[in-house]
């Protein structure tokens, strides 16, 4: 392969071959030349790879763009095709506005929504066979499939009712699933077990569960004195109750 510049007609002939823009006849003739000309063959391989390099740049950009769209759509599905539904939405909004006023969430529910963020879950390390069911449920939990996670953990909790990890995550999945009533008894037990690694977080989520269900007196009764993580936030929320 020569180090001097490749002439333009040869460059463009190779290009047409690589991009499949030759007629069947032209292609057959060109392939004949390739068979007998090692230098041309080397030039063709080099040009093909350079074209692939350019295409790869575009494919990489496209993949990143699709990934970004996937992430965005996951967060804002409701924003899609809004124009399509605008006129219906306007009518529905007028009809429902009065009802919504009556059915608006209570101040407590708004406070809960403002401060609640589901526990992120545990890293999934599934080397032990007996852990498989637990970890499978944890994957569901981390994917935001809280009802599915509760269903998977349920039998495990029945088998091991004192397991604090199971109690905590069943309670967390219940609360994240909107079922504060199911979460409260589990969090109440854990909050009273200072030896448990989940004790502090359970007190916080129990507090929020009481806020959500309107049990203000019970919420206010939970002490967070000396708790460096939650004391400040709890004080602010209590001031609004």
């Amino acid at each position, binding site marked *: 392969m020569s180090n001097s510049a490749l002439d333009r007609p040869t*460059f463009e002939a190779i290009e047409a071959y690589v991009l499949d823009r030759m007629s069947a006849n032209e292609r057959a003739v060109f392939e004949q030349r390739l068979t007998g000309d090692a230098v041309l063959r080397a030039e063709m391989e080099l040009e093909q790879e350079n074209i692939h390099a350019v295409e790869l740049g575009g494919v990489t950009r496209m*993949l990143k763009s699709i990934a970004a769209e996937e992430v965005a759509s996951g967060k804002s599905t409701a924003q899609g095709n809004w124009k399509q539904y605008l006129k219906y939405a306007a009518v529905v909004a007028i009809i429902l506005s009065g009802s919504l006023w009556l059915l608006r969430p209570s101040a407590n529910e708004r406070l809960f929504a403002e401060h609640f963020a589901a526990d992120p879950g545990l890293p*999934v390390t*599934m080397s032990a066979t007996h852990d498989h069911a637990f970890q499978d449920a944890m994957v569901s939990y981390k994917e935001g499939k809280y009802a599915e996670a509760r269903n998977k953990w349920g039998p495990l909790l029945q088998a091991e009712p004192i397991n604090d990890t199971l109690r905590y995550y069943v309670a967390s999945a219940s609360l994240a699933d909107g079922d504060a009533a199911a979460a409260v008894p589990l969090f109440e037990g854990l909050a009273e077990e200072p030896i448990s690694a989940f004790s502090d977080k359970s007190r916080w989520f129990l507090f929020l569960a009481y806020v959500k269900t309107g049990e203000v007196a019970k919420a206010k009764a939970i002490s967070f004195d000396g708790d460096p993580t939650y004391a400040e936030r709890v004080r602010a929320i209590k001031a609004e109750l």
Partner: protein
Amino acid sequence: MLRFPADPSFPTVEVTVTDIETQSHWSAGLRRNDPATVRALYSKHFPTVRHYVLQNSGTSSDAQDMFQEAMTVLWLNVKEGRLVPDADPGGFLYRVAKNKWLDVVRSAAHKHMKVVHDDRALDHRTDAPDDIEERIVRLRGVYDKLDDKCRAVLDQFYYERKDLATIAGEMGVEEESIRTIKYRCMMKLRAFRKAISGEESEVI
């Protein structure tokens, strides 16, 4: 050519994406860099990879990275005509992404992690042979050498498959100018590649 046997551990994903139901459709689409084909493959097969990575100490972001790398390997295999006619893109993407994630998990930074199923020994590593991986790195290095002006023209011509007249019209210049720019940019790449191969020969 690579052959991709059915993977019993690869679950079926119930997504209706009719455009990629047949190999001729999806591989032809990838060959011409068709965005709709890439999106369809992404929508249909990413959830399975995401599930595997999440199951093995990873995050959604990790899963995106693994899937994108696997898609790149699939794309280059199609471009180079390495696929057999009945190749299954879902199984291919799953195996490549899984092997890449296992490599990450086994790296020094992730030695504390454990994995559910490390059946890599049973996997067909030929799905992503090392030379493909190396070539992808090399191709990215070549692309990085292009300046903005060259990228603007070459991207449209080679990646987006626009004709010279369309590119010229959009850039407000004569068609012949675009043709010349394209030729000069490709000659720069050629010179760069020759310089690299010259250095390699000297080392050898």
